[in-house]
């Protein structure tokens, strides 16, 4: 069944009786050529591109809980490709381009909205760094625009430009950035993958990796053992736990990142705005609630819930640039587990164990990477060579000293 305007009209006339299941709930088979561990955005996208772009069949995605229940369902929905370093920018630009064509590609409305993203800066040094970054974006074929304080004032009149402790001195905008309905991304990929024959298996937790003579030949799960040709781990915050089953220690720590939503209000914020003198970012969902966030809580956590000091810090950051939010009520907060890597950049690579592959270390930037992560991981799985935009995302970059450290914080994951 394809979604179309005609289908919507005809279903409306027939009482919507004809819509079928968005994806098929599969029962595990005894063997797959590709087993993708993790039914989040990245895992589902990997399965989809593996089937669609690389023509592979006999693929399973196994998910310990419900599909899309990890970070793809608990983020602030922002997409952008405003990176500085050559190891990152081509990858994220590929991702943004995939977002731009996603809905046609998947035949699913993921509400991709290129409403723009604006990073404010507040010091001369920040301006210099943002110019360097904006130039890197343009040199990589992305878009970037430097805005003056006056331009910002006229476009975003509600920002605090009058009585600010750290006055706004300008901003770097990426007009192609924006937001996407996060849950719909998981559903869209699930539906498209399922239609290509991918088995999506929910409530199936991996309890062990079947490794014989340094070769991974399958997984054991709560729904029985499954043999596999290639086993691909794609579990974000649970990366260390799953890879520990293969005896691997990773350059990753798990940390909790909180996100917040306010009660709904009429359109106020036209795009995504980030504060540069504290950590706060905000956009407005199509339902009207402000969706915002800030720093990770800062200590290792698998708790999917946050702590109050960061709530306070985020609200302070919000009030610093958007003082008109004072009486707006915060409705709900939640936490996701971030696989914070040692340089703030991800890993898409083979492991030292044959046929075992790894995708993780997304820190808190995984959502925007979803399409490119899936495509590049599929490329690696299908061809055993890294995708051209992901050649830097290797395990060995730490021993070689080739870190991709956008923030310059070094090997302290909670600072990235």
């Amino acid at each position, binding site marked *: 069944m394809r979604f179309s305007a005609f289908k919507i009209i005809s279903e409306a006339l027939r009482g919507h009786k004809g819509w079928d299941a968005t994806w098929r709930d599969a029962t595990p088979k005894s063997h797959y050529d590709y087993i993708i561990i993790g039914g989040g955005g990245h895992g589902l996208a990997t399965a989809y591109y593996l089937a669609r772009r690389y023509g592979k069949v006999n693929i399973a995605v196994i998910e310990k809980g419900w599909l899309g229940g990890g970070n793809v369902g608990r983020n602030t929905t922002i997409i952008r490709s405003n990176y500085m370093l050559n190891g990152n920018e081509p990858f994220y630009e590929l991702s943004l381009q995939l977002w731009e064509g996603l809905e046609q590609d998947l035949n699913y409305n993921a509400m991709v909205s290129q409403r723009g993203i604006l990073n404010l800066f507040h010091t001369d040094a920040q301006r210099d760094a943002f110019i360097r970054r904006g130039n890197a974006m343009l040199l990589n074929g992305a878009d970037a625009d430097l805005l003056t304080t006056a331009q910002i004032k006229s476009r975003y009149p509600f920002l605090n430009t009058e009585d600010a402790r750290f006055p706004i001195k300008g901003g770097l905008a990426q007009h192609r950035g924006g937001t996407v309905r996060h849950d719909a991304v998981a559903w869209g990929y699930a539906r498209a993958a399922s239609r290509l024959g991918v088995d999506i298996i929910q409530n199936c937790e991996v309890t062990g990796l079947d490794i014989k003579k340094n070769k991974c030949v399958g997984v054991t799960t709560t729904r029985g053992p499954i043999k596999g040709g290639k086993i691909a781990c794609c579990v974000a915050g649970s990366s260390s*736990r799953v890879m520990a089953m293969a005896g691997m*220690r990773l350059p*990753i720590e798990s940390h909790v990142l909180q996100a917040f939503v306010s009660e709904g209000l009429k359109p106020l914020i036209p795009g995504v705005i980030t504060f540069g003198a504290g950590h706060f970012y905000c956009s407005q969902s199509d339902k009207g609630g402000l969706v915002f966030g800030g720093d990770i809580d800062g*200590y290792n956590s698998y708790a999917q819930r946050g702590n109050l000091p960061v709530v306070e810090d985020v609200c302070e950051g919000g009030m610093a640039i958007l003082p008109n939010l004072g009486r707006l009520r915060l409705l709900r907060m939640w936490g996701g587990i971030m696989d914070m890597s*040692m340089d703030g950049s991800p890993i898409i690579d083979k492991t030292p164990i044959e046929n075992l592959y790894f995708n993780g270390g997304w820190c808190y930037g995984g959502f925007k990477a979803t399409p490119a992560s899936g495509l590049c991981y599929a490329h690696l799985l299908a061809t055993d060579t890294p995708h051209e935009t992901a050649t830097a995302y290797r395990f060995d970059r*730490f021993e070689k000293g080739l870190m991709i450290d956008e923030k310059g914080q070094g090997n302290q994951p*909670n600072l990235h």
Partner: protein
Amino acid sequence: MIINHPLLGPRDAAEFTYLGDASLIDRPDGMADNALPAFIDYGYLRDNNAGEHRELWFHEQGDRSWLVVTRHTVTHEITNVELASDVARKRGRSK
């Protein structure tokens, strides 16, 4: 979260700054033959377990002690707090 400081008693976690895994105490010898692989392991690889975790916190807004906190990374329950200097000595870091 409340951290029960071994000298000062219960204090709000907001007074502290986090560093990471307590294995950072075990800094390798920079002059040893195998220094490079030892430092790569020390600097970059972590157990990152879901469960009991020993980790370093600095009482920045307090007495400036570095502490080793034993905390459960799923429940956040803190079961032990020690002065990092004591732990370091026990682990053989005396000069």
